[in-house]
């Protein structure tokens, strides 16, 4: 095992549901430092939810070990100040959100004195304050997912697991979730996001791991995974010409197409100088667009069966 200060520290964590089948999760060794926003990416059926359930003590590993903040995952106290939004979220339809949260606050050990304040805090965070007295049975899927998020955020957790946290949300809800996750990062809360929505992960995560057929196939920062910039595309407000080519030749390969200049092999640090060179020659610039691989492109490469 690595250090006991990591938020999550697993060593060869394995889960095989049937002895003859390949394991759903195989030898997962993963260390996530406290305060990290971690994106766990993979196609459906890759085993992401199984990993999350093992870490939360919901599913028993076949072999291997894992610790949450230094505590073994088979002990209930490893889940103190840990929040969880399941992919399959459902809350008792006979309760109101306030009652659901009160129940979870009691289970989570939130002190009775400040419990109502805490409940109101998370309700307003997820935008459910005005529906706090309605039965959850009347809620849409999106509202239930918001309630699930409120449950996960109760008691200022130091580690939050979010399994497909925006699957039922409209675009406004997704923006809210992004803001909440950014807020958690500002508070140094560790966030573990299971998702196959790559745009969200790209916007939120400090680190991502690609998971395929029960194994991690890539792990690192988004820049590290995607690779460095492959150039920029510069749009002018007039047609580009030989003057532009001469101005930019020193920075890399130049290709002109109408009002657009494609400049490859330029480093990120050189981009301001290239723009300044064009401006110095009297050209007006409408846009500078980085030519980098997206997380989605990298995902598709890594998930390709031939890889």
């Amino acid at each position, binding site marked *: 095992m690595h250090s006991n200060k990591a938020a999550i520290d697993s060593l060869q964590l394995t889960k095989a549901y049937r002895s003859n089948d390949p394991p759903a999760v195989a030898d997962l060794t993963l260390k996530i430092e406290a305060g990290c926003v971690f994106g766990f990416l993979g196609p459906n059926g890759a085993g992401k939810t199984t990993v999350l359930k093992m870490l939360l003590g919901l599913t028993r590993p076949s072999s291997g070990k894992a610790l949450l903040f230094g505590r073994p995952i088979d002990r209930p106290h490893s*889940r103190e100040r840990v929040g969880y939004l*399941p992919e*399959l979220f459902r809350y008792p339809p006979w309760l109101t959100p306030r009652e659901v949260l009160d*129940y979870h606050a009691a289970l989570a050990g939130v002190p009775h004195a400040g419990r109502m304040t805490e409940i109101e805090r998370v309700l307003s965070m997820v935008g459910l304050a005005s529906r706090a007295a309605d039965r959850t049975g009347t809620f849409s899927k999106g509202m239930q997912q918001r309630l699930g998020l409120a449950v996960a955020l109760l008691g200022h957790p130091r580690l939050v697991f979010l399994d497909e946290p925006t699957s039922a949300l409209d675009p406004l809800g997704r923006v809210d979730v992004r803001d909440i996750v950014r807020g958690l990062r500002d508070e140094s809360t560790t966030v573990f996001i299971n998702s196959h929505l790559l745009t969200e992960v790209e916007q939120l995560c400090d680190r991502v791991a690609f998971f395929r057929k029960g194994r991690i196939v890539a792990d690192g920062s988004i820049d590290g995974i995607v690779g460095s910039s492959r150039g920029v595309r510069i749009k002018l407000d007039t047609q580009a010409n030989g003057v532009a080519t001469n101005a930019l030749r020193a920075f890399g390969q130049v290709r002109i197409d109408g009002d657009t200049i494609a400049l490859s092999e330029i480093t990120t640090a050189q981009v301001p100088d290239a723009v300044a060179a064009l401006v110095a020659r009297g050209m007006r610039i409408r846009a500078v667009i980085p030519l980098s691989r997206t997380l989605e492109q990298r995902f598709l490469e890594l998930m390709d069966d031939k890889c």
Partner: protein
Amino acid sequence: MLTIALDTIREVSRRKFAPAAIALTALVTILTGWGFWSLARLHTANGRPLSFVEVRSTTAFLVIFGAFLFSFVLAFGGAIISAPLLSTDLESGLLLPVLARPISRVSFVAGKAAALIVVIGIYSAVTAFLQLFAVRLTTGYVPPHPFAAVGALWMLATVVLAFGLALSVQLPALASSLIAVTAFGVSWMVGVVSSFGIAYHNAMLIRVGILSQLLVPTDAMWRFAVYQLEPVAMLGHNGGFGPLGPFSVVSPPPIAMVWWTVAWIAVVLTVAAGAFSRRDA
């Protein structure tokens, strides 16, 4: 455990079990009162009112018959409220965020079981004593040991409840409740058959009856209850059927059977908690 238990009691009340039980109990109490009031004023074909002894003996038998039907209600109730609590709620996603809290699965099952045992105990006591009060009010009859009888019926319901809860670790609600109720029914049938063994001094039938009572002690608890409700003069009368059948016993099961039933419930719930602790969510 207390938080889980209180939430379970709230669930039972919110899921309309409690309002339905209250409404049905009120209705049955009114009908019981009306029925026994009519009985006390019955006349024979030649216009003679029933004698005191006739009213008392008929009332005593009908109280036992009512308790017999009530034991079915309790068994069905125990099975139905316990059956969806583990597997079904886990697979529907309802329990995932709960079990991800810093609580042990054993305390979760213990909280659920404790709440249901209390709920079914309150229901048994309130319903039974309301019926007996209606009987007392209309006919003046009080069975010999009503508290012990109600206690035995409560244990009968708890046996079915514990069994249903244990089955619900792996099985869906319908299968769990069906198996638990079937076990209760089979135990009851074997009890009837073994009464023939007692009547005809057949050692094998008696042994089968004892084995059945040890495996699923609901019939033993029923026989314990019926003995507490029988006036001494009616022992073994069984509405004219003698010692055959479920409505009369000459002697109750030994008191050790009560302790066996308590131990049986404890063991089954312990097995349920252990199995649930090992179950993947």
